[in-house]
């Protein structure tokens, strides 16, 4: 899993049936200090995260299918949590 910040959302009517009715969030990858660490990902929202929130993103197919309870879904990235605080020992 890695940390991200929700930057936006994808609106799409023509897509794979698995994604019908699912929210797709555009998330920038951030490091533990909240700074962008390069790259982004479009992840399915398993929790109700909004734009600007720091989130926890699972980026592995098997786990993603288990979270979304669909053993054949073409999904790899899922927003599985909303982060309240990150404490780092320096």
């Amino acid at each position: 899993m890695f940390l991200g910040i929700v930057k936006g959302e994808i609106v799409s009517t023509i897509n794979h049936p698995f994604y019908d009715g699912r929210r797709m969030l555009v998330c920038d990858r951030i490091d533990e200090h909240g700074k962008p660490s390069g790259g982004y990902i479009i992840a399915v929202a398993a929790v109700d995260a909004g734009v600007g929130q720091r989130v926890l993103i699972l980026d592995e197919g098997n786990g993603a299918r288990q979270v979304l309870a669909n053993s054949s879904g073409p999904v790899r990235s899922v927003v599985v949590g909303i982060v309240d605080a990150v404490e780092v020992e320096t």
Partner: protein
Amino acid sequence: MLLGRVTGTVTPCVVYEGLTGVPMLLVQPLSTAREPVGSCIVCCDSTRMAGPGELVYYEGGREAAMALDETFVPVDHTIIGIVDDVHVE
């Protein structure tokens, strides 16, 4: 998944069984600011409706093959959907 722009089509004359009839498109990966990132890739199209110029999002790895009708095929990028609108701050 990542954003991409369809830039062309690929028409194979001989293809691995299981991929016959699967549309293949040339896609330029994009950043969230819609700038090209890296080089073009060839994606299969699970929607069968994407055309040149359209903004799409695609999946990589094993999930790319799982998005097609025939799931046990040698595919590493597949278009999952066509973007109607994307709000990015």
